[in-house]
């Protein structure tokens, strides 16, 4: 190697290039770890997709997300296991919302004079590769794309969701997304959340918008902000009014978990979120 493209070089520069080449030969080259690169790359792509523009993704809980056994709800009642619920699902892909997602508005508000919405689209689990391939095409027409966008078979048996935020008349922006097995429902105090800015012009702005998933049994989530204040989201029924003054935990059509949204006051930012009841 020599750096002789530029005219102004002394012999010493050229010699240093030779010495660098000589020193570079010290390294053991080995075999390119192609498979490890692919695995690592897929993990990176999955992480990037799952987070999208939301940052500070937090996953809390010890159950591993499995809720197959009968669980005690917060009120002491028996919670119906996910598997039992699945058995009663309709059979055609259309009825299972494989090709058209079910959309639920999780929260809305006004920021700097513009209305914002947070919605979640839940796509039903395809049962075959053909259904999955058709679902992928349908997702594409909705401008939604799972992380393994080249591999429709990865969608088989999984519910896929996309959480988006729209401000004013702007295009919806992906906050979070994932493809999960119906058995991987949340339980107890499990919580998965992402924090994002509310300012559509600044992706690096203070993270005042917190969106997350909790178990169906969770009755209360407390979001704590950096200034020490906190916001409590309480569980409401499906279809309950969206009230920008009140944080809420609500069900989303097609989702086996409930969803919450907290908004911090101007000037503060996300610190933590946990199921408190």
């Amino acid at each position, binding site marked *: 190697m*020599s750096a002789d*493209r530029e005219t102004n070089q002394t012999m010493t520069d050229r010699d240093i290039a030779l*010495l660098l080449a*000589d*020193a570079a030969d010290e390294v053991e080259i*080995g075999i390119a770890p192609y498979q490890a*690169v692919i695995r690592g*790359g897929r993990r990176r792509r999955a992480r990037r997709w799952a987070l999208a523009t939301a940052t500070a993704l937090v996953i809390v809980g010890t159950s591993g997300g499995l809720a197959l056994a009968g669980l005690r709800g917060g009120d002491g009642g028996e919670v119906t296991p996910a598997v039992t619920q699945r058995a009663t699902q309709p059979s055609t892909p259309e009825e299972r919302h494989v090709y058209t997602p079910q959309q639920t508005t999780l929260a809305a508000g006004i920021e700097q004079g513009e209305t914002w919405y947070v919605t979640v689209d839940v796509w039903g689990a395809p049962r075959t590769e053909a259904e999955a391939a058709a679902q992928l095409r349908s997702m594409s027409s909705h401008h939604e794309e799972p992380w393994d966008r080249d591999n429709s078979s990865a969608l088989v048996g999984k519910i896929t969701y996309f959480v988006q935020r729209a401000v004013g008349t702007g295009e919806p922006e992906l906050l979070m997304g994932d493809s999960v097995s119906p058995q991987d429902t949340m339980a107890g105090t499990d919580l998965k959340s992402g924090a994002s800015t509310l300012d559509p012009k600044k992706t690096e702005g203070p993270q005042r918008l917190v969106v997350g998933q909790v178990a169906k049994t969770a009755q209360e989530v407390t979001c704590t902000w950096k200034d020490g204040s906190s916001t409590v989201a309480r569980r409401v029924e499906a279809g309950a009014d969206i009230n920008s003054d009140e944080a809420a935990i609500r069900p989303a059509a097609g989702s086996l978990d409930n969803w919450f949204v907290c908004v911090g006051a101007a000037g503060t930012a996300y610190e933590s979120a946990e199921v408190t009841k």
Partner: protein
Amino acid sequence: MGDRKEARETRDDAFQSFVIGRWPRLMRTAFLLTGEQHAAEDLVQSTLEQTFVAWRKVGSADDPEAYVRRVMINAHARKHRRRLKEFLAPKDDSGLVREVADTGDRIAQAEDRSALLQALAQLPPRQREAVVLRYWEDLTETQTAQAMGCSVGAVKSNAAKGIAKLRAIPGLAEMVTHGGRK
């Protein structure tokens, strides 16, 4: 779906060829940047993982090498700067220039390639990056500036300072005379 699958397979093949073909050179560059075998492997693997994520775009670009260099330099600046200092820096925490241009002990150390590596490792990261890209990767100042995400002026300045410090290694001239030691 057949077309989609075929396109994916073509992309995968192209990426595999890219990884296998570029691995040796990337390893050498990473070694000069990090000064350590395992750190170099980590840096190259991390760089290629990021390249994989963007491969659909990068693979069809005119100059995928430029993207990979940029990723590697960014990753190096972010991850390996502190680690390298801890790994190779002399225990004495005095100034880097004085370390390189010091006394007779340095002459003895400069008798083999590790002296150059050590001197390289003692350069501030931006100087080291500029020297490696200009004198090992053989990039022009403009290409180096693109890879480092800075101006051509900054490249000139960093490369000149870095080279001046390497020249100050007392045994360097002798190494040059003997064409390096094998």
